[in-house]
C-alpha cells in the first residue's frame, strides 16, 4: 500500500444554465487502495470542513452494477482502466504527482445538473419508447418450455449487461447513443418474447434516440473501448439490420 499526492482539476457548475469552470484542488496522501469515488469523498470532506461547497457527483451501488457513476478523467470516460465503472476504478491506476482533469459526461442530450452530475433521462425516454415487452406472453413458463439456443441466450445476456451509464455517449466523438440503444434493442429482439413488437420497437427507439439530440454513428468504436460492461459494436450492426428490416416493411 502506498500514498500518492494528486492535483485535481474539476469542472464546477452551480446549475444547468450557469457557466461552469475548472477549479484546482491539491489532495495529499491518497491511499492507492481507495476507489476513485472514495478519493472524491476525501476531497468533499476537506471542502466541507473548509465551509466550501462539495463537488456533486452521481453514485449509488459503488460496486459497478447500477450505472449511476461516471465522469471523464483525462479525456477518457470512467478513467484509464478498461472494463470498469468509475466506482470500481482504483487509485493504484495513478502515480504520485499526477494531474487529473475531471469533467462530467458531456452530451447535448445530457444536461449538466451540477458539477459532475448529469441528467440522463434521455436514456429513460428511449427505453419508454419501446425497451420492454407489453404483449401478454403468458404466465411463468415451465423451464425449457421455450427452447432458446445457448448461444442466443448468451448474446442476449451480453447485451443485457448494459447498465446505461452513458459512457458510450460521453466518449463518442459525435455524441451518438447507438451502443446503448443497440444493446437495449438486441436484448429483446434476440429472445422469443421480444418478437411480437420487434419491428415497432426498433423504429420507435431509434426515432426517440434521434429526437433527443444524440449524434449519428460513424463507427469510430470509442464507445466499445470505454464501455465498462464491454458491450460490443456487434450490437450496433444488429440494430442497423433490425432498423433497415423494420423500415422496409413497417416504417
Amino acid at each position: 500500500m502506498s500514498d500518492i499526492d494528486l492535483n485535481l482539476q474539476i469542472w464546477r457548475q452551480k446549475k444547468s444554465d450557469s457557466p461552469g469552470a475548472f477549479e484546482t484542488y491539491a489532495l495529499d496522501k491518497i491511499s492507492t487502495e481507495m476507489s476513485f469515488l472514495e478519493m472524491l469523498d476525501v476531497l468533499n470532506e476537506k471542502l466541507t470542513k473548509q465551509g466550501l461547497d462539495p463537488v456533486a457527483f452521481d453514485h449509488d451501488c459503488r460496486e459497478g452494477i447500477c450505472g449511476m457513476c461516471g465522469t471523464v478523467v483525462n479525456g477518457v470516460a470512467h478513467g484509464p482502466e478498461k472494463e470498469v465503472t468509475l466506482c470500481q476504478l482504483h487509485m493504484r491506476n495513478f502515480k504520485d504527482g499526477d494531474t487529473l482533469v475531471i469533467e462530467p459526461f458531456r452530451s447535448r442530450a445530457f444536461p449538466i445538473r451540477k458539477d459532475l452530475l448529469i441528467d440522463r433521462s434521455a436514456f429513460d425516454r428511449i427505453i419508454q419508447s419501446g425497451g420492454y415487452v407489453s404483449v401478454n406472453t403468458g404466465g411463468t413458463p415451465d423451464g425449457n418450455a421455450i427452447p432458446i439456443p445457448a448461444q442466443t441466450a448468451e448474446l442476449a445476456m451480453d447485451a443485457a449487461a448494459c447498465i446505461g451509464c452513458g459512457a458510450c455517449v460521453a466518449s463518442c466523438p459525435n455524441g451518438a447513443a447507438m451502443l446503448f440503444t443497440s444493446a437495449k434493442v438486441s436484448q429483446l429482439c434476440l429472445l422469443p418474447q421480444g418478437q411480437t413488437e420487434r419491428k415497432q420497437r426498433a423504429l420507435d427507439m431509434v426515432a426517440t434516440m434521434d429526437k433527443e439530440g444524440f449524434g449519428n454513428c460513424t463507427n469510430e468504436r470509442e464507445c466499445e473501448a470505454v464501455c465498462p460492461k464491454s458491450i460490443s459494436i456487434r450490437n450496433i450492426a444488429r440494430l442497423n439490420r433490425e432498423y433497415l428490416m423494420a423500415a422496409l416493411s413497417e416504417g
Partner: protein
Amino acid sequence: MWPIKFISSSIGKKIIMAVSGLLLILFLCTHALGNAAIFVSSHAFQTYANALHSLPVVVLLFGLGLLVILLFHIGFGINLFLQNRAAGGNRYAINTRVVKNSFASKTMPYTGLLILLFIIIHVFGFNNGPADMEVSQLVKEYLSNFFYSLFYIFSFCALALHLSHGFWSMLQTFGINHPRYNNGIAKLTLIVPAFFLVFFGAIALYFMSGLGASY
C-alpha cells in the same frame, strides 16, 4: 411517407452513405478494369475508349447515374458531418481517443473532399483536351507532367485512406459483423484500398517515370 422518414433517420442516412459508397467502389472496379488496357498498349486503350463511346446513350446514363450516386454520398456525408459536429464536437478540455488508428475515421470528410476535388479536375481535364487529340494520347500528355501525376498519386492516397475506414464501416453499417468473418473483413479493409492505390498509382507512375513514353 416511409422513404422520407427512413432517410431522415440517423441509421437511414448511414445506410445511404454505405449503399452509395458501395456503388462508388463498384464503379472504381469497372474503371480499373477498363484502364487496365493502358498497360497493354495505347492501341488497346483507344479501342476500349472507342467501343465505350460508340454507345453514347449508355455512357450518358452511367454518367448521370454516377453523378446522382456521388451527389447522394457527398450531400449526406456533409449533412452527417455538420450534424455530428453540432452534437459532439470538441466538448472536453482534454480529448483522448482510446481507439488506436483513428486517423482515417477522423478525416473522412476531408479525404472525401480531396477526392471530390480530384474528380472535378480529372473529369474536366479529360473532357476538355485538345479537339484533335485521341484520349489514349491525352492520358500520356497529362500524366507525363510531373506535378499533374503527383496530384493524382496524392489523391489516390486520400482515396486509400478514405476506404481504409470506409470499407469496414460500410459493412458494419449493413449489419455485417460476425466473429467468423471479422478477420477476413479486416484483411479486405487493407487489401481493397491498397489495390486501388497501387493500380491507379501505377498508371500515373508509368507515365510520370517515362516508362510509358512509347506505350
